[in-house]
C-alpha cells in the first residue's frame, strides 16, 4: 500500500512571509519535527500543503480533538469474520510508508494522547504498537508536523514541556500590509484596491484583540469577504457577514466593529 491518494498534485498558492520555506526545507533535510505556531487563518495549513507539494510527499492530516485517543492516531484491532484485524491509524500510515503527518491543533488533544509521538520525534524514530507487539521503524521520508495556536486557551490546554522541546518551531502571524493585500487579491480574485480596503478593515478588528475579541479578523476571513464582494455583495454587507458576525456575539462589539468598518469606507 502506498499513500498516493495523499499526494497533492496541483501547487497550492502560498506567498512566503519570510524565510519559512528555507527553514522548512532544512528541517526536512534533517528530518526535524516541525511545530507551526500562529493564530487561526494565517496560513499554517496552506503552508504545509504547499511544502508537501514542493517536496512531493504525501500529506496525512489529522485534526485533533478532545476525545481523540492514542488508538485514533496509532490504529486498533477491528473484528471481521475471521477474527481480529489490525488497522493502522493515520500516524502509523505515514510512519510506515513515508510522508508528512500533520497534526492540526494538537493542543486540543489530551496530553496523554500526544505522548505517543515522543518516540517518533527524537533520534529513535520508532513507533511501538504495544497492542500488536510491533515496533514500526519510521520510513526515511517520514516527517511530523504539528500546529499549535498559542492563544488565550493555552492556559488550560498546553503542550507538555517534554513534547514542546522536540520541535523546531516556525512562528506565523498575519502578513504585512502589502503582502496581505496581494494574497487577498490573488485568493479572492479581487482588484488590489479592494483587497487593500479589506486589509485596512481587518487591521481595525485586530486592534480589538484583547479588548473584547480573542482574535482579530484573519487573512482567511478577508479572503471570504473578498469572494463575496466579487460576487456583487456590497463591501459593508460582506464584511458584516464574514468579519463581524463570526467574530463576536456581543451586540456592543458588533456595533463598534461595524462603525470601524464604516470608517474605512469612503
Amino acid at each position: 500500500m502506498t499513500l498516493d491518494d495523499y499526494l497533492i498534485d496541483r501547487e497550492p498558492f502560498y506567498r512566503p512571509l519570510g524565510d519559512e520555506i528555507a527553514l522548512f526545507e532544512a528541517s526536512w533535510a534533517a528530518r526535524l519535527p516541525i511545530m507551526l505556531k500562529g493564530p487561526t487563518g494565517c496560513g499554517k495549513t496552506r503552508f504545509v500543503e504547499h511544502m508537501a507539494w514542493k517536496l512531493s510527499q504525501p500529506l496525512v492530516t489529522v485534526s485533533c480533538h478532545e476525545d481523540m485517543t492514542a488508538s485514533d492516531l496509532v490504529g486498533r484491532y477491528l473484528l471481521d469474520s475471521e477474527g481480529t484485524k489490525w488497522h493502522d491509524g493515520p500516524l502509523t500510515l505515514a510512519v510506515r510508508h513515508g510522508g508528512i503527518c500533520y497534526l492540526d491543533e494538537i493542543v486540543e488533544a489530551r496530553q496523554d494522547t500526544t505522548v505517543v509521538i515522543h518516540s517518533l520525534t527524537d533520534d529513535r524514530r520508532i513507533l511501538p504498537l504495544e497492542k500488536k507487539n510491533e515496533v514500526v521503524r519510521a520510513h526515511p521520508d517520514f516527517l511530523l508536523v504539528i500546529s499549535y495556536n498559542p492563544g488565550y486557551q493555552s492556559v488550560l490546554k498546553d503542550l507538555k514541556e517534554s513534547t514542546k522541546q522536540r520541535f523546531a518551531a516556525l512562528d506565523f502571524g498575519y502578513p504585512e500590509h502589502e503582502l496581505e493585500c496581494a494574497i487577498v487579491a490573488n485568493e479572492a480574485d479581487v482588484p488590489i484596491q479592494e483587497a487593500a480596503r479589506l486589509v485596512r478593515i481587518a487591521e481595525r478588528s485586530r486592534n480589538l484583540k484583547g479588548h473584547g475579541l480573542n482574535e482579530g479578523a484573519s487573512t482567511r476571513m478577508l479572503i471570504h469577504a473578498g469572494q463575496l464582494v466579487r460576487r456583487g455583495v456590497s463591501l459593508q454587507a460582506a464584511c458584516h457577514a464574514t468579519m463581524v458576525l463570526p467574530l463576536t456575539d456581543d451586540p456592543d462589539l458588533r456595533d463598534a466593529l461595524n462603525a470601524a468598518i464604516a470608517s474605512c469606507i469612503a
Partner: protein
Amino acid sequence: MAGSEPSSPLRLVEVGAGRPVPGSEMDGVSAQARQAFPGPLLARWLHQGRELEKVGLYGGILVSYQRYSPSIAEAVAPQAAFDFVRAIKDMAFVAGRQAAILLCSAGAFAANRLRDPDAFAGWSRAMAETAEQAPESATAILERMEMLLRRLDLGGLESWLATGLRVGGGDAQKRYQFFSFADPIAERTLIRETGDALFADREYRLRSFATALWGQEMVVREHGLLASGLSPRRASFDGNFLRVPPSYPGVRGGAAEALYRASLAHVAAHLRFGRGRFDLGSLKPMQIALVSLIEDARVEQLAMAELPGLRRLWQPYHQARAGTSLTAELLLPRLARALIDPDYEDEDAWISKARALFFDRRADLSDPATSRRIGNLLGNDLGQMRIQFNARTFVVEPAYRDDNLGLWDHDGADAEALESLQEVVESLRLEQGEEADAQQQKKAPDDSQGQPQRVNPEALPEETGIPVARLPEWDYAAGRQRPQFVTIWEWPQTPGPGDWVKLVLQRRRDVVQRIDSLVKAAKVSRPIRVKRQPEGEQLDLDACIAAEIDRRQGREPDPGLYMLTERRQRDLSILLLLDASQSTEDRVQGSTQSVLQVEKEAAALLAHAMDGLSDPFALHAFSSNGREEVRYRRLKDFDQNYDEAAHRALAGLESGLSTRLGAAMRHAGSFLDKQNTHRKLLLLVTDGEPSDIDVEDQRYLTEDARQAVQGLALQGIDCFCVGLESGADSALARIFGRANSLTLDRLGHLPDRLPQLYFRLTK
C-alpha cells in the same frame, strides 16, 4: 438649581420670625396679591393665612405663603393657591419649618412651569408623598426644584423621585445622598428621565470603536459636576485619559451615539497624529483657540486620509454658514467648516487665506508645528481686524470636538498663560487633577459616616486590634511544639477608595477578558469521558473489541463495555493570604508601583475570577510585630459578598511590620477548615522568606512555616505559595515543596499569572 429666590424667604423669616403678621391685614397686602385674588377671593386668601396662623405656622411660613401664593393663583388658579395651604401644613408637620418655607417658593416655580391645575395638584401630591417617605430629604429636593423642573416634566420628576426612594430603601442616609446628588446615580437617573442619551449606557461599544480605529486603549470617564450643578459640555483628554459629558443635553438616541462616536474618533485622531503637547509660551487666548482649531483640522485630515469613512462621522456637525458678521464666535466655526468641508463656500478673505495656508502644502500637515504656524498667522490677522474674542464664554464648536486642554503643556507654563488657557477651556471648569482629588477626598469621609464600624485608623490610637487566638509554634531546635506561643490579633481594615477595584479591572482589561473566557470555560465544567463502565450511554469500542477477543480466546470478558460522559462539579474553597509586611513597600523594579500594590492588583484580578466562578473565597492579609502581635486582616470572608465593602478593604490595605508566616497560615487554616468543600486551597502571596523582629535564627520561622504547611495538609488543606522576585525561593521551596511554590522573576507578571495559576490549581 435654586438661585437667589429660595434664600429670600429665609431672610424674611428672620424679620418676621416668631410673630404673627402685624396689625391691619389689608396693610400688608401687596399689589400682586390684590390682582391675583380679585374681589371676594382676597378675603378668602387672608382667611387662609389665618388658617396657617391657627395651627401655629406663622412667621416664616406665613410670610413665604403670602409672598408666593399670588404667583400660584396667577399661573394656575386661585383655588390652587388655597388648596396649597393644606400641603404646606402637612409639609411643616412631616419635614419641618424650613421644608414648608421652601415648598412655597418651589410651589410658585412649579405653578409657573406647569400652568395647569391638575398638574400642579399632582406636583403638590408628589411632594407630599415624597416628604412622607423621605422627610430628611425634603429640603434637599425642594432646594433643587427649579433645576429639576427645568430639566424634567412632571412625569419625569415623579419617576425620578420614585427612583430615589427605591435606591435609598429604608436608609435615610442613602436617600439623602441620592436627593442631594452626592450619589452619582441621582444625576444619571435624572439624565435618563430627560430622555437624553447617557454615555454610561454606551460606554463599552463606543470605547471599543475608538480602540478599533488605531489600537489605542483609552480610559474613559464621565465628567463630574461643576459648581453650577451641570457637567462640562465638551470632551476633554489628557494622554489616554478621556473625560466625556455624561450626556449631551437635548441629544437623544442614535444622534447621541453618533455624537459620542465622532467625539471619541476625534480624540483618537489626536492621539494617533498629535505629537506631544504644544508649549503655551506667551500665546493669547485667541491664538490658543486658533492653534487648537487648526490642530483639530490637521489631525482630522490625516485621519480621513487613512480612514475615509470618518468624514461621514464628522462633517455633518459642521453647519456654520458664511455671513457678514465678523465676530470670533461666528468666524471660528466657519473656519472649522472650511477646513473639513471641500464644498463649503465662503468668500471671506481671512477664511480663504486660512484654507490656502492649510491645503496648499499638504505635505506639511504631518507636522504639528504647522498648526502652530498657521494658527499664529491667522491670530495676528484677527488681531489686526480688531475682532474681539471672549475667552470666558468661548466653547469649542462643533460639539464633538474636545476642549483642547490636552493639546497644551500646562506644567511648565507660567501662571498667566495658564490662566488664559483655562479661560479658553471653560471658565468654570476645575482642573482635572484637582477635580479627581477633590472627589476622592470628599468621598472618603462621606462614606465612612454611614459605616461607623469602618473608621479611619489614623484618627485612632494604633492598637485597635482584638486578640482572637493563641497558636502554637514549632521550635525546630528543640524538636517540639511550643503551645500557645503566638497571639493573633484581628486587625480592622482601613477602607480605601471604593472604585479602586473597578479601575484596576479596567486598566487590566486584557487580563480581565482572558479571565472571563477562562471563567466561562471552567464554569461549564468540561465533560469527561469515562471508559470501560458496566453501563453508560455509548459502547466503548476498544472495550468491545477486547471483550470479543477475550470471548474468542475462551476467557471471561470484562463486562465494562460502555462509556459515559460525566460532568465534574467544582467544589472548592480558596483563601488568598497576602503578605503585607514592610518589605512590600519597596518599589517594583522598573515601575512606580510598590510590591503591595502589585499584590493587591493581582488579588483584585483573582477575586474577579473567583467571584465569576462562585467559588467560595476569602481574602486575608497579615503582618507581624513579634510573637505577641500577629496582625490578621480579614478583607473578605467566605460568607461575605465580594461587594464594595470588600473592594474598599482591599484598596485600603497598607504595608508594615514583619512576616510571621507560620502563625498566619495556621490561623488562615482555621477558616478554611470550617468550609464544607471537597478541596480547600490556601494560596499565599509573599515577597520573601519569613522573618520577625524577635527571631534571630533565620531557619526558625522557615521551619515553623514548613511545619504549619504539613499540619494543614493533614487537615486536607492544600497550600500553594507565590514568591515575588526575592531570591527567597530556596526558603519557599523548603516550606511548601518545590511543586507547590512558584517564584516570579518579573513581578509585573503577577496580576496576570495569579489568576492563571488559580485556574491551573483548581482544574
